[in-house]
């Protein structure tokens, strides 16, 4: 769906990381974790394109914008990296946004019996919180959070409040262990059983996670990012290579429509530098 939304709150959580709550029509609460939104950050043509953001949370509350009853809302967690996100950060309570969503295919929770392991890097924690909220109702959930430094590890308290046990690793050791979160993960998987991985973060982290999943033979869903123009499968700008891809038998998948969440087995994980596969 496409809707106009009013900003309810917009707060800087950690330097450069913001959390925004905005009004949304009631169906938003039916969104699946891992689904995303395409947000037009301003009315004009600069920037021209919408910006994709995962859903961090949804809910309903009483706001100043609604006279009676409760107003459904959604939240995003975002990092200021360029023009569009800088414009988002400048918005105030009551400002208007034009939003498309929820879009794409979210995470599949799977068998509630097993242990659910979330692997998040930096801003990749955003969709995992929404996922955790759903998973904790039936399963044991653990979070492995990684980032460059302590400021890049967000909302850990929120996860713990849900009952999620969390392990943290930072590149510089300013929070949790020093090193990559996938190393901690690998040690844990040696003893865990019936685990499922859910990962979101930078490409090198996703690759490493998929590799760990392959070695330990555990199911793993990854949420990808890609440059997007339309967010709905029309422009074919956001594709990644599927497992059967080859020069003579193309197998491209749209991150926006076939993803952003994919089973790691469905993708072709190429060697070499990170970047979009």
């Amino acid at each position: 769906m496409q809707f106009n939304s009013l900003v309810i709150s917009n707060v800087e959580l950690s330097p450069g990381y913001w959390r925004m709550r905005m009004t949304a029509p009631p169906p938003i609460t039916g969104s699946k974790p891992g689904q995303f939104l395409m947000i037009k950050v301003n009315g004009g043509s600069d920037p021209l394109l919408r910006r994709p953001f995962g859903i961090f949370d949804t809910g309903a509350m009483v706001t100043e914008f609604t006279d009676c009853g409760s107003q459904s809302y959604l939240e995003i967690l975002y990092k200021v990296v360029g023009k569009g996100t800088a414009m988002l950060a400048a918005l105030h309570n009551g400002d208007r946004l034009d939003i498309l969503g929820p879009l794409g295919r979210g995470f599949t929770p799977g068998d509630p019996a097993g242990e659910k392991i979330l692997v998040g890097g930096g801003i990749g924690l955003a969709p995992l919180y929404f996922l955790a909220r759903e998973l904790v109702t039936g399963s044991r959930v653990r979070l492995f959070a990684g980032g460059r430094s302590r400021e890049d590890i967000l909302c850990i308290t929120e996860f713990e409040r849900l009952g999620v046990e969390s392990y943290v690793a930072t590149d510089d050791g300013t929070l949790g262990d020093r090193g990559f979160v996938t190393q901690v993960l690998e040690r844990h998987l040696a003893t865990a059983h019936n685990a499922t991985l859910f990962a979101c973060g930078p490409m090198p982290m996703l690759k490493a996670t998929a590799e760990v999943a392959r070695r330990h033979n555990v199911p793993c869903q990854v949420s990808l990012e890609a440059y997007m123009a339309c967010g709905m499968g029309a422009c074919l700008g956001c594709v990644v290579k599927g497992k059967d891809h080859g020069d003579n038998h193309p197998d491209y998948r749209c991150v926006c429509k076939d993803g952003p969440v994919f089973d790691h087995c469905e993708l072709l994980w190429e060697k070499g530098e990170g970047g979009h596969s």
Partner: protein
Amino acid sequence: MKPNCSVDIGGISLKNPVMTASGTFGYGQEFADYLDLNSLGGIITKGLSLKPRAGNPTPRIVETCGGMLNAIGLQNVGVDEFIARKVPFYRTIDTTVIANFFGTTIEEYAELARRLDAIPEVAGLEVNISCPNVKQGGIVFGTDPAAAFAVVEAVREMTIKPVIVKLSPNVTDIVAMARACVEAGADALSVINTITGMAIDLKSRRPVLANITGGLSGPAIKPIALRMVWQVAQAVEVPVIGIGGIMTATDALEFLLAGATAVQVGTASFLDPGAAGRIVREIEQYLVSEGIGDVTELIGALKV
């Protein structure tokens, strides 16, 4: 009284002059949730080739000031799967569907025209000539009047459906291209396709697009498109379809004044999936509020 909005493109009667541009609206179905497909003047399909095509490596798109570059590389399901999987949907809607297609040899163009001619759901053919001719060392069909003539002539022989030729703006003389296509039998011309451009990432010192260059679209190119439509509409007798940076009904109406009989909405559908439907409504409102009984009164009505 409701004004008349319908226009005629080489024998195809459109409900109204607003179509969606090839490659920006999927096969149409993708947008069914965001607008009433039946309200559109027409839908142009994603460009089709004889065999499925993988397209280019990624990144394929990048935003620019007032526009975007794309180097999708004409990824598409191929004409067979189009006929098998996409065409049946067109039986469920009441909108003119025009198939856009391209080849890398004249024979491929001809064969595609033959195949598509047999599909009743396809009202007309839009020939994308902005493709390199592999047999002639990669010279682009759409930048050489003789090559364009040869393609259009070959297509013309294979179909009785209206043939619309989509011109490339990357030329010195768009009028010469237009004339060559009309002489070869084109029933209408679509003006313009994207303009070749490039973006560079300073940090990595690499082109942003894996393909190095891409096609520029969006409001940034509107002045160039409008100029070319105006030039072509004055030079040829066949209807011209205006394309390039159309975001609003005002933009669309400016193209009509410049001489376009219809328009196509491209990049705007990415920003606002309901854009084409909104433009249809706003044109109707404009006609009513200005007391114009027939949209065709505006075509070429520019006072110079």
